């Protein structure tokens, strides 16, 4: 098993899928010769050529819409949005078309396609290179949404996404790209969409998270165990839609306390769904209010490092929230 970082895992996942299935292609801005602005597609252009690794014009609606057309035609496109922040020009295609194609055609047109998007802050990207905009997609019926937090999940979920008969929004937290290396199972290991991962078992409270927050939550859990004797269970949701409600409720049943953590702002964020689910279906098990820890209610991550630090979730903030919840 090689040790890879998340960026390498994503790249290897694409490479293996392109090798396995010649219908798989990659398209997006600067994905070709340059290999992507983060390097996620590095080497693929040389290996698969300019058509299967297609540098598109600077037009996101076209990227999504043409990917949809190609999927109708029988290909299995992986479209890249250069930053999740730049997906909005494609929103009409994604929400009006891609999410609804199967339902509206009574199952006769499916869209096996993936949209990869680097998201998240902490990289001095300010309001428009830092967004965590997953809630727009998790609330959209017909899409699947995943957000891996480890290299193994990045590769395994990417493979699942490429093979999925339905459209998958694939969120890659850009701060995790080179954050750490970890073992990635060799070969064709697919991580199924729809299953959470208990990243750390615990008994006193549950922390629900995904993406970069997995790393932060695990770090916080260590601190809580060490300094407070609080054993936090860290549940990495990984798949946001479909959501592994069973795993969530099982954890709440065990710990009776739920902390939902994400980087996006709180009001109407994805955490609202997780919290509402727990409040509704886990009510009898709860010994404390479901608590959300989320980014502040501002329209984006501000640039100056003072302000960015203020914005970002950190292990310390998770520790504080968990302590308050445990003490409830």
């Amino acid at each position, binding site marked *: 098993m090689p040790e890879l970082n998340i960026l390498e895992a994503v790249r290897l996942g694409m490479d293996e899928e392109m090798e396995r299935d010649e219908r798989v*292609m990659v398209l997006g801005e600067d994905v070709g010769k340059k290999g992507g602005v983060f390097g996620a597609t590095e080497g693929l252009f040389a290996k698969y050529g300019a*058509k*299967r690794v*297609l540098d*598109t*014009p600077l*037009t996101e*609606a*076209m990227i*999504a*819409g*043409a*990917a*949809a*057309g*190609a*999927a*109708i*035609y*029988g*290909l299995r496109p992986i479209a890249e949005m250069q930053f999740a922040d730049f997906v909005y*020009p494609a929103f*009409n*295609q994604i929400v*009006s*078309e891609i999410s*609804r*194609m*199967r*339902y*509206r*055609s*009574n*199952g*006769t*047109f*499916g869209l*096996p396609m993936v949209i990869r998007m680097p998201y998240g802050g902490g990289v001095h990207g300010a309001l428009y290179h830092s967004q965590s905009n997953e809630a727009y997609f998790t609330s959209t*019926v*017909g899409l*699947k949404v995943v957000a891996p937090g480890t290299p193994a999940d990045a590769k395994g979920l990417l493979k699942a996404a490429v*093979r*999925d*008969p*339905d459209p998958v929004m694939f969120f890659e937290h850009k701060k995790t790209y080179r954050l750490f290396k970890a073992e990635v199972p060799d070969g064709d290991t697919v991580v199924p969409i729809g299953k959470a991962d208990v990243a750390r078992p615990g008994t006193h409270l549950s922390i629900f998270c995904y993406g970069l927050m997995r790393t932060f939550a695990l770090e916080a859990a260590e601190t809580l165990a060490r300094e407070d004797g609080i054993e936090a269970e860290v549940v990495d949701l990984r798949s946001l839609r479909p959501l592994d409600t069973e795993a969530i409720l099982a954890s709440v049943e065990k710990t009776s306390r739920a902390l939902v953590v994400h980087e996006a702002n709180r009001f109407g964020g994805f955490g609202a769904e997780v919290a509402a689910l727990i409040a509704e279906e886990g009510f009898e098990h709860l010994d404390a209010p479901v608590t959300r820890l989320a980014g502040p209610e501002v329209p984006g991550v501000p640039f100056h490092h003072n302000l960015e630090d203020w914005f970002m979730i950190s292990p310390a903030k998770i520790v504080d929230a968990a302590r308050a919840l445990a003490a409830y």
Partner: protein
Amino acid sequence: MVAKETATTPPHVELGLTDDDVRAMYRQMLLARAVDERMWLMQRAGKIAFIISGQGHEGAQVATAWPLRPGQDWMAPYYRSIASAITFGMSAEDIVTAHLAKGDDVSSGGRQMPGHYGGAPYNIVSLSSPVGTQVLHAVGIAMGAWVRGEDVVTLTSFGEGTANQGEIHEAMNFAGVHRLPVVFVCENNGYAISVPLDQQVGGGNVAARAAGYGMTGVTVDGGDVLACYRAARDAHARARAGDGPTLIEAHVVRMTSHSSDDDQRRYRDPAEVEALKERDPISIFGDQLRGWGLLDEEVDTQLRADVKAEVNDASKRAEARPDPDVATALRHVYAEEQHDA
């Protein structure tokens, strides 16, 4: 081309069409019109909730769809495309079934409003309502064929109001960059609901935009079926030859209100509406056929009777089909089997 023309070669023959071809085209136009008119009747009778009409567009639609090869080429049409869809393989019964929103409607199983043509068996992409989105699907199909090196041409159509949507620009630009095998047909009927051309299209000329994408742009009179056919045939050939996409702007007439929810008397002069009849492509093409000696009163009457019978029959069968079963309403949100295809 010019050298071949002689006083005795009828124009359709010069274009490589047989007498039967042009009569068949005429019949398709009649059929589309008859279906359309039937839909209005059914709408007034309360049998269908809504109708959006292709009346006045039939000439351009039949002619531009004519070169397509069913089972091989693709089509991403729009809500006025009854005649295009019929020409490319849908039956009158399919159309009526969709309007009645029956459970086995090929387009959507009764899930979509009338006018949302689509059909997997016919290579017709399922259409939504936000205008213009289908144009990117067409370009994506063309991209797929280009990536795979397959001989497939995709035709897509839309109105002149829709031509201003940003997605159309992105689609045409991309098609222009890679000379993709796609034919864009703008059916310019002068109105987008109530908004007339001069408030809709800067400069008033949609085909003029083709030059800005490095593609061929052609303006044709939608009342001139053979001119439309010639443009489409050339565009199809250009696409197959790797010579890139074509934008055809066909000037057509919208002979009805925008839809059954609209009343065009609110914004359109009665004289203008009255004058539309003169531009009805069916009468114009009929007159041409008569002029070329390909149609007489008897044949015309027979064709119209045929078409009427076909529509009667289609309607009867469509009405007998089952309504959607509520138990299926939750199906097909996602694929029902997770197959690794």
